[in-house]
């Protein structure tokens, strides 16, 4: 019996402040990995920048982060940028973005040929290994949300540097329970390019060429993003998930 591959969309939520080559590498690595399992056909990758309501320090306006992401994925034939999350009035929990975003309300950019007997398309959350560690941070995630992300949807987690996602999995009962639905991808090329480092370099007038696409470099220059002032934005503000979820923690 020929196994029918499950059509798969990969959703990456994050600040993308700014988007870097490393973010786009995540998609490429994840796609290769999921294909190699023999069970999936990756049909789309979605970049979903967080809304300004997130309140993270140094977060520049969503309109810029969206514009830069769009420039970055222009040359890709399978990545798209989803503005839905950034347009919501308040910060949206990741699980809500997964539930209400992409697949349900907007047609995928790549038409998936309908197979009457074929499996329904799935959406999995694409992230770095550091993301798994955030599940442990008190007040940042609701337990039932972690359950839904890991259980109902699934995660594709790309490891980098010294982080050990296996440990984060082991230390979380919820994640352990859903390990069949959590795909760990090893990034062998040690690439520590991070948006934080890119912002630092830009602040200091240093080159970021070959770390982020040229078009994004141009955009940053034109709009004079990432200065000492922009880095201080939201300083002292409590991250929105912590305040939003603290109130309704007993739900």
């Amino acid at each position, binding site marked *: 019996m020929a196994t029918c591959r499950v059509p798969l969309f990969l959703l990456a939520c994050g600040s993308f402040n700014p988007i870097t080559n490393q973010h786009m590498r995540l998609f490429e690595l994840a796609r290769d990995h999921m294909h190699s399992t023999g069970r999936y056909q990756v049909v789309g990758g979605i970049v979903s920048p967080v809304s300004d309501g997130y309140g993270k320090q140094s977060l520049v306006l969503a309109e810029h982060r969206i514009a830069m992401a769009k420039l970055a994925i222009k040359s*890709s034939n399978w990545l798209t940028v989803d503005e839905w999350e950034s347009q919501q009035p308040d910060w949206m929990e990741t699980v809500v973005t997964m539930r209400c975003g992409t697949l349900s309300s907007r047609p995928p950019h790549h038409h998936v040929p309908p197979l009457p007997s074929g499996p329904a398309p799935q959406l999995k959350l694409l992230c770095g290994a550091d993301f798994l560690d955030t599940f442990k941070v008190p007040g940042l995630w609701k337990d039932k949300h972690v359950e839904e992300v890991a259980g109902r949807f699934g995660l594709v987690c790309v490891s980098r540097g010294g982080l050990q996602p296996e440990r984060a999995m082991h230390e979380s009962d919820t994640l352990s329970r859903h390990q069949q639905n959590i795909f760990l991808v090893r990034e062998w090329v040690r*690439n520590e390019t991070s948006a934080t480092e890119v912002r630092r370099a830009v602040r200091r007038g240093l080159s970021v060429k070959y770390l982020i696409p040229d078009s994004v470099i141009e955009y940053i220059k034109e709009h004079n993003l990432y200065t000492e002032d922009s880095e201080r934005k939201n300083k002292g503000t409590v991250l929105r998930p912590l305040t939003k979820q603290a109130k309704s923690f007993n739900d």
Partner: protein
Amino acid sequence: METQDLTKVVLLACGSFNPVTNMHLRMFELARDHLQDTGRYKVVAGIISPVGDGYKKQGLIEACHRVEMSRLATDNSDWISVDPWESLQPEWVETAKVVRHHYGELVAAEKNSDEVDTVKYAKKRRRKENSFGGKDDPQLMLLCGADVLESFGVPDLWKQEDMTEIVGRYGMVCITRSGNDPHKFIHQSDMLWKHRRNIHLVHEWVTNDISATHVRRALRRGQSVRYLLPDPVVRYIQEHNLYSAESEKKYAGVVLAPLQRNAASSSS
């Protein structure tokens, strides 16, 4: 600081570039930022010089492809370019010779522009020093990773006089990262220590370890190398179907040209 007081520098990177990656290109950017940050230099050009096929390193594909990929990679750079001279030589050329050649070209180019300048800017020319090695002469520095610096320790890979010439007469810019200890390496070599002021160490805080070996491995396995190399290079590789298990076996068992040459001369 007047531009006239800055020493003009050209960075020369020799290597296999098999293929060129974003890491190679980053080296140039890091080196330029570092040198200009000292307030003493102005980096005016960067040159990629892919090694000739005579090097016989395992997995080395034809120079014409490596040169073309490097060209595609630097197409949108306003200061880095590719020079195929080394790759066109019939036999492998020692790095010191490549440096000497490019320095010669640099001086000749300066002379030509001087002659033009003379007509237009007589005053400026009178102020220029005429002695060799004066502050107004451009400097050519070898750009490399710390691994190249440390390869000075590999027996028969480098001729003693070549190493001395490169660091003594020209200069090196070495990009290092955590895991390397170039200071220690320099400290442990009398020759390097003597010319330590000519060896510029640039620490790469954001490790970007995109080795060409890894890239070739990924390609052999049909994995994506997008965003590790410039897009035009990825396309070129796909179009020409470069890098397979076959290409990786090329020169297997063959002695690397420098080892062959230096071993032969040391035994004669």
